[in-house]
């Protein structure tokens, strides 16, 4: 496991040195989100607005209107409290604000259901002008943050707390281009976030059982890499999606929508089955809510039977 939020803080410090107009805003969670690292290094370009997420988004909009590159950081669930401010004050005018959130999915495990964000991908990708990135691990998070800071307009970058390492080092990350991690023949696992690492272990298990499963890291949920997805659907004829999110409205839905329009293909969605979480250990919760390699393996076996 490696801390994704540490990487977030470190990347902001790195980018702050070259991007003079980078401003970081926070709503009283700078220590938890690790934006405190940026605050220490660039105190003049860091503002804490206190426990007020609506105000956070509005202030970000104002700074962006004057040409600043703005990062607005808080926990995923609390950013959603200001969804309408993000829509009306930021996305409507396509302002240069990067909403970078931590503690998404079940990763704020101990704090319980109130702090766990399992609907955010659904509501953020439904917003015009907004792009949605869900990095697989700390390395990819760093690359994703650098990439979005380099592209004008609004982004939602969804980070967890800790994630098993998927990447040894940087690769040529590109927004909107999925990363092939494993080639397969029988079925493809399209995953995002912490579920990328779960997909890789599921693929190992499947291989031992004679099923050649591929893994596609779909770090950009919107705009979805339809090209890679269609290629995969054509070759395999069966797709599994895996995400640390409700099965309604997230990556699974995005994939199913694209395939329904372009190449109807059997899909099995691994995710939280439309229920709230609870307090517990992270691993425990991932297991209870079906976010495990075992669930992916089961889904693979179901979908292969239905293969096109």
């Amino acid at each position, binding site marked *: 496991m490696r801390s994704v939020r540490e990487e977030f803080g470190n990347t902001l410090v790195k980018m702050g040195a070259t991007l003079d107009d980078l*401003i970081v805003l926070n709503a009283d969670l700078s220590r938890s989100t690790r934006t405190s690292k940026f605050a220490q290094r660039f105190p*003049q*370009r860091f*503002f804490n*607005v*206190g426990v*007020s997420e*609506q*105000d956070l*988004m*509005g*202030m*970000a*909009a*104002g*700074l*962006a*209107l*004057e*040409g*600043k590159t703005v990062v607005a950081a808080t926990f995923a669930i609390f950013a959603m409290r200001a969804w*309408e*401010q993000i829509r*009306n*004050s930021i996305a*409507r*005018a396509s302002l240069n604000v990067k909403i970078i959130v931590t503690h998404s999915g079940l990763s704020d495990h101990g704090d319980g259901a109130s702090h766990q964000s399992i609907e955010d991908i659904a509501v953020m990708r439904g917003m015009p002008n907004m792009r949605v990135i869900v990095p697989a691990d700390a390395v990819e998070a760093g690359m994703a943050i650098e990439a979005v800071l380099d592209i004008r307009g609004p982004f939602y970058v969804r980070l967890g707390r800790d994630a098993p390492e998927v990447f040894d080092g940087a690769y040529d990350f590109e927004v909107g281009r999925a990363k092939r991690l494993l080639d397969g023949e029988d079925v493809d696992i399209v995953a995002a976030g912490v579920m990328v690492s779960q997909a890789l272990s599921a693929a190992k298990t499947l291989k031992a059982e004679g099923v050649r499963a591929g893994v596609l890291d779909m770090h950009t949920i919107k705009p979805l890499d339809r090209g890679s997805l269609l290629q995969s659907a054509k070759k395999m004829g069966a797709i599994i999606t895996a995400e640390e999110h409700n099965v309604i409205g997230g990556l699974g839905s995005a994939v199913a929508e694209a395939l329904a329009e372009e190449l109807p293909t059997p899909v099995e969605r691994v995710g939280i089955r439309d229920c709230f979480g609870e307090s517990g250990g992270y691993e425990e919760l991932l297991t209870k809510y079906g976010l495990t390699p075992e669930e992916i393996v089961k889904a693979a076996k179901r979908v292969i039977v239905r293969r096109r």
Partner: protein
Amino acid sequence: MLDKRDIEPEAEEILPRAKTRRPPIESSHLAPAVRALEERARTVRLHILNMIHRAGSGHAGPSLSIADILVALYFARLRHDPKQPAWRDRDRLILSKGHAAPALYATLAEAGYFPVEDLLNLRRMESPLQGHPELGTPGVDVMSGSLGQGLSIANGIAMAGRLDGKTYRVYVLLGDGECDEGQVWEAAMTASHYKLENVVVIVDCNNMQSDGSTEQIKSKKPLAEKWKAFGWRVFEINGHDFYDILLTLDEALEVKGRPKAIIAHTVKGKGVSFMENNGDFHSGALSEQIFERASIELGHPVKSSGSERSR
């Protein structure tokens, strides 16, 4: 971090003492300017009614109540240039009560940001004059429409100005009904915490909101004291008295180190007797008959079929 300068004398009045020392308008050098502004505001009101009549919908009452404040700002106090809407050093104006867009558009057209004839495209598809302000309309600094969001944006703009060493001021027009929104108070705290002295809020206090009087729906009283308690320097004015508006705007700028709020007591529907304080004219269509009666009251009958040229 409280230092001595932040502590006001206990007897600080909400109304600044300077107000009582003002010369009467008749002997003020501002008298001719005030007369010209009154005439301009009458024209703006006629535009507002014509626009809403033609569009078939819009918020007449809330637009009429801020017409005088907008005219005072754009014709006498804002540092702006209609030839260069994106001038970096201009003063900004945020119409946080975005439903009063017709008043803003009419004032911007009169100021020369776009032709007066364009006003008749209000709420038409693909027109820059959308039902609520969008970026891209010449002179519109900030989009709005969903209440309560303007002050947070103003704070961001003011913060950027401070970082960039700019001296522009950021004026925010809020409705009193809008002060129900929690975000207004989040932002009020932020502005005083960061001592954003270039932020000036003007609350259009017409005592009415969509569903009825502010007292019936949700009392804002005591509104001036609320702003004061949030760390703002507060002024109260008659929002239809240009002399009061101009002098108070000037006095507000003399206050350093904190944001300023001007509580402007206004009348919803101001200028048309049967619209004043009448909730029926909060929003909706204005019939031919209503429009003609209102135009006659404003002393300038406008044939709704013809184009409005009152300059």
